[in-house]
């Protein structure tokens, strides 16, 4: 593995992002603004919680689902680069190793996730949420976006049409963004569903973030589960990239 090669792959993504930074920031502000308005400000005023306000409850959830979306969506262009533009060939041809390529691409997605997380934090502050910022919180956000970037990468390498990519969004990401302890506690779910939901990475991210944002404990087990997901995701992504060479 080679840091310089990782840097090159990242440089390309940064070059593209830089050009649209304003547009990117504006577009990333819309969703959290709506969530915060609808659920935090609108609905939240009528919701009673044992501790804190509903707004404080959902901000970590929104950060979790946002970093999921940003991780995944950061990898979607790779699908077109592989299937339509064939520009992925440049990387396969070059001396850059598959792992350097994958890490470079993940870094690009993580950067987007971090920028949009900052936007959410700022917006939430404006709405008057009480959130405790910490280094661990950012580590969890990064980890979550890595996991979903890997899932996005895997999908981009394996699926044959763009419609299928969109279906992953509809059938996997969208349900998760509502079910995984983001807008309500998983404790409210029926036991069978809860068991299943508790296996999903986003659930652990939401709970971890919520605990951190409210000054609670660092949930080590959840953190280890996220690490495990990230490791498996990396392995699968790398394998998909290498299989692509086998044709």
């Amino acid at each position, binding site marked *: 593995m080679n840091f*310089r*090669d990782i840097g*090159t792959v990242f*440089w*390309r993504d940064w*070059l*593209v992002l830089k050009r649209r930074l304003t547009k990117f920031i504006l577009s990333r502000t819309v969703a959290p603004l709506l969530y915060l308005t609808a659920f935090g400000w609108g609905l939240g005023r009528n919701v009673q919680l044992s501790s804190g306000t509903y707004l404080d409850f959902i901000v970590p959830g929104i950060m979790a689902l946002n970093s999921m979306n940003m991780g995944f969506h950061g990898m979607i*262009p790779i699908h077109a*680069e592989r299937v339509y*533009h*064939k*520009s992925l*060939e*440049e*990387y*396969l*041809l*070059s*001396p*850059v*190793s598959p792992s350097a390529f994958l890490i470079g691409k993940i870094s690009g997605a993580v950067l987007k996730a971090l920028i949009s997380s900052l936007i959410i934090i700022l917006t939430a502050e404006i709405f008057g949420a009480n959130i405790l910022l910490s280094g661990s919180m950012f580590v969890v956000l990064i980890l979550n976006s890595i996991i979903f970037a890997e899932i996005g990468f895997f999908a981009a390498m394996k699926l044959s049409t763009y419609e299928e990519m969109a279906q992953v969004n509809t059938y996997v990401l969208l349900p998760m963004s509502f079910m995984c302890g983001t807008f309500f506690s998983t404790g409210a779910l029926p036991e069978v569903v809860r068991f299943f939901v508790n296996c999903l990475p986003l659930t652990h991210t939401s709970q971890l973030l919520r605990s951190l944002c409210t000054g609670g404990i660092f949930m080590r087990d959840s953190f280890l589960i996220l690490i495990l997901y990230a490791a498996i995701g990396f392995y699968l992504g790398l394998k998909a990239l290498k299989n692509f*060479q*086998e*044709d």
Partner: protein
Amino acid sequence: MIEVFNLTKKFKTVGKDKKISFKTAVDDISFSIERNEIFGLLGPNGAGKTTIIRMLTGQIKPTSGKIFYDGKIFDGNDPEIKKLPGVVPQHINFDRELNAAENLELHARLYGMEKSDYQNRIKELLDYMELSDYANYNVAKLSGGMKRRLLIARALVHRPKILFMDEPTVALDPQVRRKIWDLIKDLSKNGVTIVITTHYIEEAEKLCRRTAIIDKGKFIANDSPKNLCERLGNFTVECEGTEGKSYKFFRDRETAAKFVPEFSGNVKIRPTNLEDVFIELTGRRNGL
């Protein structure tokens, strides 16, 4: 420079009934490419030319067979070997998000070049390909021929030791094509090995020290254009009859001339060219 032993590629294809079958694109070929030579790959559509290039450059893995670069086995991963080739692909595969110059810069960086080195190099290449005015154009907005010129420029950025060109002159106007020919000869003089596929037989005849003729994934000939013609017969009798043209080949003009009076109709004696060899070996054209 490159030695290839028993190279085979079978593509997995999934049919309509979801049945998996294998398509043999390259079928057990062995050959070598000498340092500094211009080696031509000729063959009809689907013969396996592109597949060979993709295997030699590590873009796809062979089903079986071995590839050696300078005596060192190549498994498709070794970064030191991967630095040697430059590839002009058959299809346009630029990064659509980047402009012309940025595409070259990405290439330079992927090959580990220093900024001080690649900045000038990119400028030179854009100049040479007459693309300087388009450096900041989005690649999607370049004309077809400009894109092809940019593909060639990109392949040259890292100063490859061996250049694979998969139909590099498709869609280029005659002047530019000639310029590319000069470039190829120049590169060859400067020690670059060149492997070129083309459907313009004239191109292979003009440039190549050796040409391999491929059909259905197999080499059916591999020799200098001159020897290939000689083997077929240096002179061709071309006869235009009611059922189209038919041909017969002769060792020399005299024997050919003796043969001609037997025919009525439009008969012509001319030197055999590579196209005759190509069609004779791969096609099913009428014999006399």
